[in-house]
């Protein structure tokens, strides 16, 4: 798992990590799913756009961007998927059971951190 903790350890040895190798989001981070409308292949369900959730875990292994790869374009460096949890009441107004939640794996390019 190459996360910020890993990076701090490596920094003590002078280790420089490659672009995209360190996951920029950490478990516990609050994120918003971006409102993007790419044409073609993507793996983020519509109902999650603009929704706020919390990072549960960093999914390994990292992967290239399949929105680009699917069309034979340069899919860039490997980035991470993150498992994100959303209260179902955040997604569906009026949803009754407050603790029920949805978990989904979302690619890094769809996430923005809420500060």
């Amino acid at each position, binding site marked *: 798992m190459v996360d910020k903790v890993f990076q701090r350890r490596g920094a003590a040895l002078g280790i420089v990590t490659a672009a995209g190798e360190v996951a920029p989001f950490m478990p516990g981070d609050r994120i918003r799913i971006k409102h993007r409308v790419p044409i073609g292949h993507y*793996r*983020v369900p519509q109902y999650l756009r603009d929704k706020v959730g919390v990072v549960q875990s960093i999914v390994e292994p990292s992967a290239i961007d399949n929105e680009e790869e699917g069309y034979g374009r340069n899919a860039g460096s490997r980035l991470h*998927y993150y498992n994100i949890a959303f209260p179902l009441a955040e997604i569906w107004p009026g949803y009754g059971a407050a603790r*029920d939640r949805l978990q989904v794996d979302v690619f890094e390019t769809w996430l923005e951190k809420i500060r």
Partner: protein
Amino acid sequence: MKDSHDHPHAETGATGRPGYYDFLESAVRELLIEKGHLAAGEIRRQIEVLDSRTPAVGAKVVAKAWCDPLFKARLLANGRSACEELGISFYDDTQVVVLENTSSVHNLVVCTLCSCYPRPILGLPPDWYKQKPYRARAVAEPRVVLAEFGTIIPDDVEIRVHDSTAMVRYLVMPQRPAGTESFTEEQLAELVTRDAMIGVIRANQPAANEP
């Protein structure tokens, strides 16, 4: 049973003209073979791979985890490597996360975008899993969907719906039923069904006449 066989049967398989996708599949398959990318035997072999994966494989994994706490810990930490210990290969190069149902959490798996499913462990998904009513409703009203499967989840139990849409596949480990303390691993595996490993039902209760 009668010896003679004089009554008519319905035709097995499609008898009408092949559809657009039938032609497309044949054309792509024949082109791939003709151009030497694949051999017919490789396609047959992959069908055998798929046919060898059934819910009975998943049931064995769950029953072993119920019986062997160390295996269970490894299974929950890394589903794929624990399954590989048992000789289950991941021909599609997916990871698998095993979700443990407890007295306070009930997990349910869906793929709203298509039909992502832990095929290396369970085989092909049931039709309802791939159809839109389940895919749309499992994320919006999971308690209602579960109730339609006969699964009533108490209000104080948290439901976690896993929308499996990316690189990872999810397998639910149901709770071990009460009254199975003396069961062997084989007997336990018989209580674990496909639907329990999707999370729409619990593991079956042992029949009254079993040990």
